[in-house]
């Protein structure tokens, strides 16, 4: 795994060459996901979205990598962990891994109860969130996984500047 020079202070890019390295990249990315956060998780089939979440969950002490499974059918997976940031060390973080692939319209989305998951302690990682403008609007940024060739992946985290109140 190699971390490229950030394009600016809000974008971080990793290049990985195996599932193990993608998990490592997830561990690194977790440092930038202080709650509350809503982040879109984008990437094609087989790109390694669940694999990346394994690393993020592991970094937060929320789950062992092999306990993190795909939420495609089950829609929402919740993992409770602790912050590894110095400022908030030990504080509870609720990591939610969502997949909206099977959600067909805004009405179904409305009754999924996503709003209730968005607490001050929550980090939401949402696959297929880009299907819904309402989710994109609520998001604080995105993680994009691109398949380069073979097992090589480019993983980029981009967080929007904090919204100014008022």
């Amino acid at each position: 795994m190699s971390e490229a020079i950030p394009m600016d202070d809000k974008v971080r890019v990793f290049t990985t060459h195996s599932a193990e390295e993608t998990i490592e990249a997830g561990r690194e990315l977790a440092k930038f996901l202080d709650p509350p956060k809503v982040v879109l998780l984008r990437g094609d089939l087989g790109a390694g979205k669940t694999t990346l979440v394994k690393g993020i969950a592991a970094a937060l002490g929320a789950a062992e990598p092999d306990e993190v499974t795909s939420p495609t059918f089950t829609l929402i997976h919740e993992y409770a962990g602790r912050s590894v940031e110095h400022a908030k060390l030990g504080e509870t973080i609720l990591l939610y891994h969502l997949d909206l692939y099977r959600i067909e319209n805004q009405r179904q989305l409305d009754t999924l109860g996503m709003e209730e998951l968005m607490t001050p302690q929550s980090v939401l990682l949402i696959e297929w969130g880009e299907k819904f403008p309402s989710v994109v609007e609520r998001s604080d940024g995105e993680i994009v996984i691109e398949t380069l060739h073979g097992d090589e992946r480019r993983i980029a985290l981009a967080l929007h500047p904090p919204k100014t109140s008022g």
Partner: protein
Amino acid sequence: MHPTLPSSSGPASASGPVPASGLILGIESSCDETAAAVVRRGAEVLSNVVASQVRTHAPYGGVVPELASREHLQNIVPVVRTALEQAGCSLEDLDAIAVTEGPGLAGALLVGVMYAKGLAFALNKPLIAVNHLEGHIHAVLLEAKKQQQTLAQPTLALVVSGGHTHLYLAEETQATWRYKNIGRTVDDAAGEAFDKVAKLLGLGYPGGPWIDWLAQHGDPRAVPFGPITVKQKPYRAPQQQSPRFLFSFSGLKTAALRYVQTHAMAQTIAARHQTLAEIADAKPADALALCNTETLNLIASFQRAVVEDLARKTFAAAETFHSASIVVSGGVAANRELRQHLLAEGRRRSLPVIFPSLELSTDNAAMIAAAAWPKFVAGDVATAALTAEPSLSLG
């Protein structure tokens, strides 16, 4: 009123409430289906209703997933009413209300749990909480009872669906079932792999029936997928290294994707997807003429790899834990090749392998009512504090 203990068909217990009718209403709303059923003494299914069968005006062909809790809310009253009607009984005839408490989707589960709680409170009848995964195991026990088979114990349960791939060792001691989780997937469930590969190839959803039907027209050895190995992770403490049977279907899915990419199949896939989309209520048979030999071989080889992997680890687990029988449940239990393969291998090893009927293998409420019976007999009832447990595990 002190009727006698349950008949020989049900387990007897000295403790617990004394059953009057033996009727339990089961309610299931953990994911896509709103379902209700009435089952007598955990053995006799009087009704087994799922909302997708009740509804007459589906917006498009096939099952419409009821992902949203609002759908469950709309369905639960008519579904329960239909289940009671078909069973020919009233609410007053019931001995208890059973409901799925988890795992599943919080909002969806809550609809069932709150409704069951309200019903139990209003009727002053016991409320019984059931784990959805335990329900799947009891679906097969129900089938075994229907066929008047006695199930040799301990039994190994393979629960395999779109959302789950688990192995449990299950045993009944003193009318109480105990479960030990000895295997699971580390990434995708087997049913999800079927769905995603079907989508990758431009076929319909859910993918299982499409792959299953088309696979019989391909060469299962044409593409050398598998065997799938999952490394035991070094970070696990030695005591946790005790036999765990881990599944992984993510790599196979990616291998299928790579095959499609390296064999330049994108154009034919897009054409197939387009043609199928234009057929109203398209069936797997409609896709046969749209698949060339290469595609059919890929489909057959993919299914062969999934089935071989499920079979290999299931029988290895059965051997390790000296299980005397195997039960298979969940949506993927409907896969014909899986059935044939497991049944043949079971015969070879003189190990009985039991599958549920189709309506009992997918999500249903009869399995919830059946799983609730031994709990009812043992007096294992839920309190008013019962709530949805989205991350509930078993064993």
